[in-house]
C-alpha cells in the first residue's frame, strides 16, 4: 500500500527554514520563481522550506509515536540525532562485533530502530549497506497562483548585551541588534509513504521482523504524519516564530501500488488527482482511498487510517 498526501498550509511570519547567517542577519531559505516578462525570464526569490527539513520533523514525530507504542528506537535516533548507523562507532551500539555480512548488518539495524527502517540509512563502511527512505517529501513552496504575494522580510530584534559591574559600556553597546527574515506564504507540499517497505529487507532477504510488528510500525508511521501535521511541529524557530495560520487543505490518497497526488502548488490538483485515480481504477481494477478537505484535516487522516485498518494492513 502506498500513501500520498498533498498539504496546503498558510504560514504567516514564519522562520521555518533558515539557511546562512551572515553577521547578525539570518536568512530564510528561498528558491527562484521564474516569471516571463516580455518573453524574457525574470527571477523572483520566494521563501521555501526544504523537504529535508520536513523529513527531519517527520522522523522526530515518529520517534515519539514509536516510543509511545513501545516500538524500538535506537539511542541516537531517540535523541533526535539521526546519524543512521553511518559508521562503525554508531553501528556498534546496535550490534557488536559488527558482522561482515551486509544482510546481517541490515537486519540488526532494522530490528533495533524503526526510524532507520522507515527513514532509511547509509552505513558507509565496508561492506557498505544502504536503504532508501520509505517516505518522500517534496519542498514546501508557495502555491503558484499566489507565489507573487509570498514575501520574506527581515525583522529587527534586540538582545541585551552584558555590562561590566560599573555599568560602563566600553566598546559594547547596550543592545545588540539582529535580524531574522520571516516568510509569509500559502505553501504546498507532497508527502509519500511506501507502507510495503517497512520491516522488509532491501537486500532481498524478505521480512525482517514479525508481521504483527510490521503492522504496528506501519501504524506508527501513519500516526507520526498525523501528529506532525496536526501539531504543526515542523520547521525551525517555533518557540518564537511559530507561524500564524494552519492547514488550509489536505488531500489523502491510498493505493495498492505507487501513485502520487498532483502537487498542491497547482490550483487544480484535487480534481486532477481524482481523475487520474479513476483511470487507475478503470484500467487496472485497483482499489483506492481518496479524501480531500478544507475543513478538518485530522478527520481525513483518521479516515485513511481506518481504511488501512479495514484492509487488515495495520
Amino acid at each position: 500500500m502506498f500513501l500520498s498526501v498533498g498539504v496546503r498550509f498558510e504560514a504567516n511570519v514564519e522562520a521555518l527554514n533558515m539557511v546562512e547567517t551572515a553577521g547578525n542577519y539570518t536568512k530564510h531559505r528561498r528558491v527562484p520563481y521564474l516569471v516571463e516578462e516580455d518573453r524574457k525570464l525574470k527571477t523572483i526569490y520566494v521563501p521555501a522550506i526544504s523537504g529535508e527539513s520536513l523529513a527531519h520533523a517527520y522522523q522526530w514525530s515518529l520517534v515519539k509515536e514509536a516510543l509511545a507504542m513501545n516500538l524500538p528506537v535506537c539511542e541516537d535516533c531517540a535523541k533526535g540525532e539521526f546519524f543512521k548507523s553511518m559508521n562503525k562507532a554508531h553501528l556498534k551500539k546496535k550490534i557488536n562485533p559488527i558482522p561482515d555480512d551486509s544482510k546481517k548488518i541490515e537486519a540488526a539495524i532494522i530490528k533495533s530502530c524503526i526510524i532507520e527502517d522507515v527513514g532509511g540509512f547509509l552505513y558507509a563502511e565496508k561492506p557498505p549497506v544502504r536503504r532508501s527512505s520509505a517516505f518522500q517529501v517534496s519542498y514546501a513552496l508557495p502555491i503558484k497562483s499566489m507565489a507573487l504575494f509570498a514575501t520574506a522580510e527581515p525583522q529587527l530584534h534586540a538582545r541585551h548585551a552584558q555590562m561590566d559591574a560599573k555599568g560602563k559600556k566600553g566598546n559594547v553597546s547596550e543592545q545588540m541588534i539582529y535580524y531574522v527574515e520571516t516568510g509569509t506564504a500559502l505553501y504546498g507540499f507532497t508527502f509519500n509513504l511506501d507502507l510495503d517497505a517497512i520491516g522488509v529487507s532491501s537486500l532481498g532477504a524478505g521480512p525482517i521482523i514479525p508481521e504483527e510488528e510490521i503492522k504496528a510500525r506501519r501504524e506508527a508511521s501513519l500516526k507520526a504524519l498525523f501528529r506532525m501535521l496536526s501539531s504543526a511541529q515542523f520547521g525551525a524557530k517555533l518557540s518564537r516564530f511559530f507561524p500564524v495560520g494552519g492547514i488550509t487543505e489536505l488531500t489523502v490518497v491510498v493505493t495498492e501500488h505507487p501513485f502520487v497526488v498532483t502537487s498542491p502548488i497547482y490550483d487544480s490538483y484535487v480534481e486532477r488527482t481524482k481523475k487520474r485515480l479513476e483511470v487507475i481504477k478503470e484500467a487496472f481494477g485497483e482499489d483506492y482511498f481518496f479524501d480531500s478537505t478544507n475543513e478538518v484535516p485530522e478527520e481525513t487522516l483518521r479516515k485513511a487510517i481506518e481504511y488501512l485498518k479495514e484492509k487488515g494492513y495495520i
Partner: protein
Amino acid sequence: MVSLISFLKVEVRPTGIIALRSLPQSKMRNAFRYPPPSTLIGALAYPLLHIAGDRTETLEPRRNARSSADRIRPLIEWATVKVSGMPRVYGSILKINRLHRRSVESAVTSFPMAVMYGESDYTLTLLYLLNDDLISASEFSVKDFERAAWGISRLGSRESVVSVESVELGKGTIMEKEMAETAYAFLLTGKKVQGGGVVQGVVDWKEGIGNYSKARIIVMFYPEGKVEVEGRLKVIDVGEEVVL
C-alpha cells in the same frame, strides 16, 4: 522491412524542484539540469518492482553493488525525456557549523538543484522504448509497465517528487532517416544539430546502473524546444513527435 516498437509516453509534473546529483555517491556538489537515462530507468524500476512485490534495492551487495533497476535495464531499449520550459540550476548557499574536537568549524557549501517552478507549468515527458520480446519472456507484462508508469513518484533524490499526469502506451515505427526534428534528448555523437539546447555528459546506463565509479560517459543533447538533427538517424514516430 518495417519494424514496430512499443513505447510508453509518461507526462509528469514536478513539485517544483528536481535534485539530480550528477555523481550519486560523491560529495561533489553538482547537479544535472535534465534527468539522464539512468535516472529515468530508476524512476520506472521502483514502481515496477513494487508491483512484483520485490523490495530489493541493491544487487550483489558484496562485490559490485548495483541498483535493482539493473534487473529491468535489458527490458528497456532506450529512455529519453522532453522538458517544457527552461529549468534553472540553483544552489542556495548553506553555512554549516559543526563541532569537531571541541572547536567549532564552519564551512560553506551548497546543494544545487534544478528548479522547475514559475509562472508557466513545467512538464516533463518521459519516453521509454520497450523491448517487447524480452518483456514477454520476463515475469512482467507490458500492462505492468503501464501501471508502473502511473506510479513514478520521483526523479533522482527524495525531494524530487513528481506526479504522473498521463500515460500513453503505443507502437512506433522504426525508420532510417538523414534528417529529423525532435524535442526529446538524444545521443549527440555523429549528429549535427540546429537549434538551442544543453549538452550533458551522463553515464552509459547500458553498462549497469548503480555503480558509476568506472562508468563510461556518453554525451546527450537536451533540446530547448524542437531542434533539427542531421546524420544517420534511427527515428521512431511516437504520435506527433519523433525520437532519435
